[in-house]
Structures are given as structure tokens and as C-alpha cells.
């Protein structure tokens, strides 16, 4: 068989193999996605950000915690090692 003809035939069959392999993969993915559908995780309750919370005490605690962590990092201590005892308005 002349090489060019062989190359053409190889190309043709190789494309078939590729489509076959990737086609099987598609089937597997479809089966997987069908039987293991995405289920939205219940939002972690602690982190809910309702508009109300944003203005209320809870959110404020969160602010303080963030500053607490920043300070801990700044002071080079573990967060549990420092206790914010008083926060004055800057």
C-alpha cells in the first residue's frame, strides 16, 4: 500500500476511534450526571446575610471577629490568645 494511502486510511480510522472513545465518555458522563444530580447544599446557617442581619448585631459580631483575626495576625498570636476587651470608636 502506498504510504499516502495508508496515512489517509489511518487518519480515517483514528478519527473513528477518537469519536468512539470520547463518545463512550459522553455516555458515562450522562449516566453519572443523571444518577448523581447536583443537590444544592443547604446554606450554612451561620453565614446567612439577610439585609436585616447586615445592619444588626450579628453582622457586627462578624465585623469584630474579622478585626479580631486581623489583630491576631498582626500581633503574631493565635486568635484564641487575645481577647478584645473593649472597642472604642476610632
Amino acid at each position, binding site marked *: *500500500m502506498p*504510504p*499516502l494511502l*495508508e*496515512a*489517509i*486510511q*489511518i*487518519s*480515517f*480510522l*483514528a*478519527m*473513528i*476511534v*477518537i*469519536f*468512539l*472513545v*470520547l*463518545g*463512550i*465518555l*459522553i455516555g*458515562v*458522563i*450522562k449516566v*453519572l*450526571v443523571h444518577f*448523581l*444530580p*447536583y*443537590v*444544592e447544599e443547604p446554606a450554612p446557617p451561620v453565614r446567612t446575610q439577610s439585609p436585616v442581619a447586615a445592619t444588626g448585631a450579628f453582622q457586627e459580631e462578624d465585623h469584630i471577629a474579622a478585626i479580631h483575626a486581623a489583630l491576631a495576625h498582626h500581633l503574631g498570636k493565635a486568635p484564641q490568645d487575645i481577647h478584645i476587651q473593649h472597642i472604642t470608636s476610632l
Partner: protein
Amino acid sequence: MNFQDAINKILHSTGFATIEPGQGLMIVISLVLLYLAIWKKFEPLLLLPIGFGCLLANLPLSLMANTDEGGLFNFFYYGVKHQILPPLIFLGVGALTDFGPLLANPSTLLLGAAAQIGVYTTLIGAVALGFSLQEASAIGIIGGADGPTSIFLAAKLAPHLLAPIAIAAYSYMSLVPLIQPPIMRLLTTEKERQVKMEQLKPISQTVKIIFPIASTVIIVLMLPGVAPLIGMLMLGNLFRECGVTARLHETSQTHLINIVTILLALAVGSSMTAATFLTWSTIKIIILGLAAFCVATAGGVLFGKLMYVISKGKVNPLIGSAGVSAVPMAARVSQKVGQETDKSNFLLMHAMGPNVAGVIGSAVAAGVFLSLFGSGDAGAGHTAIEALKTITASLGQ
């Protein structure tokens, strides 16, 4: 002979005097690569160390070519010659890849397959230009637009062509934003380019975890020769998705891939010597590589048009060109060309599906070649060629 003469002789004894024209030209090529990497931002993570490796390898008497026994880059080249480094790169690529868009729209895998048409037409072209089938396969894979896959296959099937193949692969990957848009515009109608695709559905974590395992099993069963590449790619992705190996995921996608990139790129660069690079083969490979990229783009877009028809206008054919891989640049090109027609059209995430599919597609294409031409007699490709010969023989009767 007096002191003056001695100093003169020293001045004339430097490498400046002993340099050969081929080395000089290779040094110029290495400087061009460095220029493209640094100022044109052509895949700088690869082309900068490749260019620097080429520079050192071609400075006379430096013993930095890949073939200089005991030379520094000879040790690095060991990892290319034995196909150790490309799979480790793929471990990092897997750790960096989100297969989510692909899983949300699995039929985009077909676009990743269609883009491999560039691989096979180039194979035919290479044979027409006088390369052997093995060499032609290694050249064709340039159309797959995956550096590590190209290096892996070239090191196995045509190590003497490794340098120009790697250079062509990475260079054209950088040129994707220039090569693809005209082809995409030419092959699509304005109506097609305006298609807005449905939002991708989210994928459960379990599917994301099972996918790398399942695809490894399927692909390696069918094409065992590509096990190191696909295996490491999917292991990296498993590190990423499984949620219990954060340490290994982090290392794979940062310092491990970086270290391996440095070693791999220097080794590839050190193989760019005048003897192996300044040949007609190199020029043919550069031309064939460009053709491969163009055909791959066209193949992806045309298959996209087919999907547009079959899906009754739900698939924008522009995402087909992303099937060449060159992650994530080809996907960005789809996005950009899409927005030329309609500013409110966001194709990026849709193009990520065929984009990562292209990585798998090229690895599969490499697997077919390995089962056809690799040592051993393994896999679907091998039997395909046997079947082919039987058919041909029976047709000839």
C-alpha cells in the same frame, strides 16, 4: 613572541573565534524566542526557559546540549527521553483544570474530538512531504495544541524531531488569538455567532470526583499507551476535586509543576542544536504545524455548526474552535469573537467545555498513535490497523 602577542592571542582564543555559523544562527533563534516570550508574551513560562536552554546549548564548547554526556542539561533531558517530565506537567495541569463546564455539557467532548481533525490532516500532509508514519504522527499532534502531549509523543516516536515539534506547538499555542478569529469568522454566519447558550447546570461534587477515575479507566483500557499522560492528568484533577488532599493539590499546581517546567523547558531548549534544528524538516514542521492549527480550528467550528443544526440553534459554533485546547486562550478567543457580533453574549464558560475536552482529545489522539506505532501491540488503534489491512487486502482481491 612578546607579551603583546600573548594578549592578542588570548583575545582571539575566545568562543567568538571558534563559533560555527550554525551555532550563530541558533543563538539568533534563541534570542528571537526570548524576545517573543518576554515582549510578545508567547507562552513565556515555556518559551523563555526553552530559549535560554537553546542559547546555552549553542554557545560553543559549553557542553550544554542535550547530547553532551555529563553536561547539566543532559541530566534534565533524561526526564524527557524517558517521558517522566511531561506526565508530571500533566499532573499539575489536571490540578489546575476545572472539568465542570465539560461535565455540564458533555457533548462538547465531540468538539474536542472534531478539533483533532487537524492532527490527522497534518499526518497525511507530513507523509506527503516525505516523513515516515511515526514522524508524521508526532508532527500531526502539534495540531492538538498541547505542549506536554506533543513532547511526550515526540520523545517516543520521533526524538530527533522533538525540538522543532515542541517549538511549533508552543509558538502556535501563543498565536491562537491571531490564527483563529479569521477562520472562525469565515466559517460562521452572523446568525450563528449571535446564538446565546443556556446557562450551564451545576455538577455534583460526586460526579466531579468520579469523572477523573472513570475517564482514566475507559481511556487507558482502550488506549493503554497514553496511560502516563491521562493517568497523571486525572490524578491531578482528583487531587483537586476530592476535597481530602488539599496539600497534594496545592503542591501539584504550584511548585511541582513549576520545577518540572523549568527542567522540561531547559531540556527541550538544549535539544535545539544546529544539527537537529537547522534542517528542511524543521521548516516543513513549522509549515505543517500552522496548517494543523488552522484545520483544527476549522474542524472544531464546522462540527460546532453541525451541533448548531442538530440542537436546533442552541449551540453557538464559535465554541468549536476552543476544541483545539490551548487552555484557556482558545476559550477566550471564542468569547471575544462572539462579542464582536453581540456585546451581551458571554461564551467563555461554554467554550471551557470544548477547551478542556481538547486536552483529553489530544491525549486520546496520542494514545491512538501509540497503540498504532508504539512498542508493544496494545490497544484499539493497533487492532484498527490490523482490521484496516484485512479490509484493504479483501478489497484488493
